[in-house]
C-alpha cells in the first residue's frame, strides 16, 4: 500500500525491491560513510566503521536496531506527505471548561500551531496540560493537517489515546509503540512514543511532545533529531513539560524557542514547597533495621494522622530494607512496596487508589502520570543520582493535586545536599514566585469552590 510510505521512511532490502518501483516512491540512502564513520540516516548516530561493519564491506547501524536494522543492504522507500485526508475532519466534542489561565494558554497554543512555531509550554504538575491542547488540535485537524502527539513514555501514550478518542468525533487515531499489536496505518492524528518518530520523515505539520523531559527523550540527542526529522521542514512543535531541562531552557533564553508559563495548578494553588531534611548515613541505619530518627518521626506523625502518602526510595534493592525498618519502627502493615518489574504492579497501584493502603513504598516508577488525591510525598535519599531534578519535581508534584486538599507536605530526606536537589527546589520556587505574582494580580484565579 502506497499510503504506508506517506511521510515515512520504510526499510526495504535491495534484493527484494522490484526492478521498477512505482514512480511515486523516492528511494533514499540508509547509511552514509564519511571517512571512518558510518552515519545512520535514520537516527543520526555516528558509529566507527569497525563497530558498524558487516562482512563483505557492508555496514549497519548498531544503535537503532530495535526499530529494524538500518544497513547498506537496504534502502528507504519514501513518499512525500500528501495530507491525503478526506472530510469530514475530526471535530472536538469535549465539553469540559478551562480556567481563565488555561484558556489563555490554549489561545496561545492555537495561534502557535497555526503559525507552525516551536513553543515550550512550561506548566506545573497538575495544571491540566492535555485539555489546553484540545483547541489548537481541533483547529489544525479541521485545516487538514497531519499531527502527532508523541511522548517518551508508553504509559503516557496509552493514557492519552483514549482521552483523545473521547474528545474528538470521527477521528481515527493511530497508536504506535514498541510492542503494539496493531500494524501501522495512515491516519491524520498519530499518538506514538518518541522512538517511533524515527520512522517518520517530514510527515507532520504539527508535533506535540508530551513530558519532553522524561527518559529516554531528554537523555538521547538522537530522539531530538528524530523529532525534527518527523515534522515537515516548515512544521511546528509544541513541547509540554513541568520540568524543562537545560537544553530547552537554553533554547528559550537564546530566543530559539517561544515559551508559555502556567505556574498555577488548575485549582489555582501554588506547588507545595519541599522541606529538606538531612539524614546522614541513612542506608547504614536501615541496614541495622531502623529508620533514621527524623524519618521515623515524620512518618509516625503521618501514620497517626491517617494521612496517605508515597515514600520514594532510589533503588529496587532498597525496598526490602525499608520494609523491615518500617515494620520495626512504625508497627503498621498498612503499606506495600512496588517496583517496575513487580508482577503485581498494576494491582498494587489500583489498591492504593482504592485507599486499601495508607502508603506505598516505591521507586521512581510512579514519578509521573499517576494521581492519588490528597497525598503527601516523602523521598528517602533524594540526593541519589538516580533522581534527576525533573524526577524530583515530578515526584513532589504528586502532592496537593486535589481540589479538596490543594496543599500537602513534601519532604526530601537527603544524605547530603546535591546539585539536583538544589535545582529542583529552585525550579519549584521559580514557578511559585510566578504563580504568586499572578495570584496577587488576579485573586479570582484561585478556585476554592
Amino acid at each position, binding site marked *: 500500500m502506497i499510503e504506508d510510505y506517506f511521510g515515512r521512511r520504510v526499510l526495504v532490502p*535491495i534484493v527484494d525491491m522490484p526492478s521498477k518501483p512505482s514512480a511515486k516512491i523516492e528511494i533514499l540512502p540508509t547509511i552514509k560513510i564519511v571517512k571512518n564513520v558510518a552515519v545512520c540516516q535514520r537516527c543520526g548516530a555516528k558509529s566507527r566503521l569497525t563497530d558498524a561493519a558487516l562482512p563483505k564491506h557492508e555496514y*549497519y547501524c548498531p544503535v537503532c536496531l530495535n526499530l529494524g536494522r538500518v544497513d547498506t543492504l537496504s534502502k528507504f522507500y519514501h513518499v512525500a506527505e500528501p495530507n491525503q485526508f478526506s472530510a469530514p475532519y475530526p471535530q472536538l466534542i469535549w465539553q469540559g471548561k478551562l480556567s481563565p489561565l488555561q484558556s489563555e494558554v490554549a489561545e496561545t497554543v492555537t495561534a502557535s500551531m497555526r503559525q507552525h512555531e516551536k513553543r515550550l509550554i512550561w506548566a506545573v504538575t497538575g495544571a491540566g496540560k492535555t485539555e489546553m491542547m484540545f483547541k489548537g488540535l481541533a483547529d489544525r485537524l479541521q485545516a487538514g493537517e497531519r499531527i502527532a502527539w508523541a511522548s517518551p513514555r508508553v504509559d503516557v501514550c496509552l493514557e492519552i489515546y483514549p482521552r483523545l478518542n473521547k474528545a474528538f468525533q470521527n477521528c481515527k487515531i493511530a497508536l504506535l509503540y514498541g510492542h503494539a499489536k496493531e500494524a501501522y496505518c495512515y491516519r491524520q492524528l498519530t499518538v506514538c512514543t518518541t522512538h517511533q518518530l524515527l520512522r517518520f520523515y517530514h510527515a507532520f505539520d504539527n508535533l506535540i511532545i508530551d513530558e519532553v523531559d522524561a527518559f529516554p527523550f531528554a537523555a538521547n540527542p538522537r530522539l531530538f533529531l528524530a523529532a525534527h526529522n518527523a515534522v515537515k521542514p516548515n512544521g511546528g512543535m509544541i513541547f509540554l513539560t513541568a520540568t524543562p531541562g537545560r537544553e530547552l531552557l537554553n533554547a528559550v533564553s537564546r530566543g530559539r524557542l517561544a515559551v508559555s508559563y502556567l505556574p498555577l495548578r488548575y485549582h489555582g494553588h501554588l506547588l507545595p514547597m519541599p522541606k529538606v531534611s538531612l539524614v546522614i548515613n541513612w542506608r547504614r541505619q536501615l541496614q541495622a533495621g531502623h529508620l533514621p530518627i527524623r524519618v521515623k518521626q515524620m512518618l509516625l506523625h503521618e501514620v497517626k494522622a491517617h494521612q496517605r502518602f508515597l515514600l520514594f526510595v532510589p533503588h529496587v534493592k532498597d525496598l526490602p530494607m525499608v520494609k523491615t525498618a518500617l515494620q520495626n519502627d512504625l508497627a503498621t502493615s498498612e503499606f506495600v512496596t512496588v517496583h517496575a518489574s513487580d508482577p503485581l504492579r498494576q494491582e498494587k497501584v489500583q489498591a492504593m487508589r482504592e485507599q486499601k493502603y495508607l502508603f506505598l513504598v516505591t521507586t521512581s516508577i510512579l514519578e509521573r502520570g499517576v494521581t492519588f488525591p490528597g497525598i503527601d510525598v516523602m523521598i528517602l535519599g533524594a540526593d541519589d543520582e538516580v533522581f534527576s531534578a525533573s524526577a524530583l519535581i515530578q515526584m513532589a508534584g504528586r502532592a496537593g493535586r486535589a481540589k479538596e486538599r490543594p496543599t500537602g507536605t513534601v519532604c526530601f530526606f537527603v544524605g547530603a545536599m546535591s546539585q539536583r536537589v538544589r535545582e529542583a527546589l529552585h525550579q519549584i520556587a521559580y514557578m511559585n514566585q510566578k504563580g504568586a505574582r499572578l495570584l496577587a494580580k488576579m485573586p479570582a484565579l484561585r478556585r476554592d469552590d
Partner: protein
Amino acid sequence: MLKCLLCGATIESRPTLKQLLLPGKPPEPRICPQCRSHLLLRSNAHPCPGCGRMLAPKESICWECRQWQRQYGWLLNNHSLYVYNGLMREFMKKFKFQGDYGLRFVFQETFNLFLQEFAYDVLVPIPISPHTWKTRGFNQTTALLTLPYTEALKTIADNKQTQSAKTREERLKTPQIFELTNPQKIAHQRVLLVDDVYTTGRTLYHAAVLCRQAGCQTVSSATLSS
C-alpha cells in the same frame, strides 16, 4: 564502563588481585551476572550419542535420534555448549533476526575454546542462503568462529523460508538443501560441522550426509546450543 551486550546493564567489574597480577584472564561471556545466571551449560552426564542432550536414566538413545539411526544407519554425535533456553532464544532473536552483528562477541571466546576440545581436521560451518546474505548480511555461525574453517558447503534452492520459521513436521520433511563445493578438501578428513542451534538435527544431518559422500573419515557436529 562495560555494558552487558544482552540487557544493556552496566557490568561492575572488580577484578581480584590474582586476576590483575597473573597473565591471561578467565574467558567469560561479555554479559552481566544477572544474564549469566540464566545461561545453562549442557552437562556431560549421560548424553545421547546422537544429539548430545541429556538422557533419562534408563535410556540409551533419545527418541529423536532413534529415528535418525533408522533413517541413516549412523548417528551424528553432536555436542552443544549451552542449553537452548529463554536467554538463548532472546540472544538468537537479537543476533540472527534483529541482525545485531556486534553480539557475536558474547559467545565467541567461549565457543571457540569449546571447539578446540574436539579432535578434528577441518571445521565446516553450515552455510546460509544467498538471500540471507543479502538481507542479514552475515552467517551467524562463521560470525562466532575465530578458528580457521573451510567452507565446503553451499545451499542449493534459494527457498526463502528458513528452518526456524517451520514447524517440526515441516522441518523433518525438508529435502536436501546443501551441495558440496569443495569435496576434495574434506575427503579422508575428520570433519566437525558447526552450527548455531541444534533443534531437530535436520540441517546437520543433511550436511553430514554430503560429507560422508565426499569420503571424509569421520563426521560429527558441534553447536552453540541445543
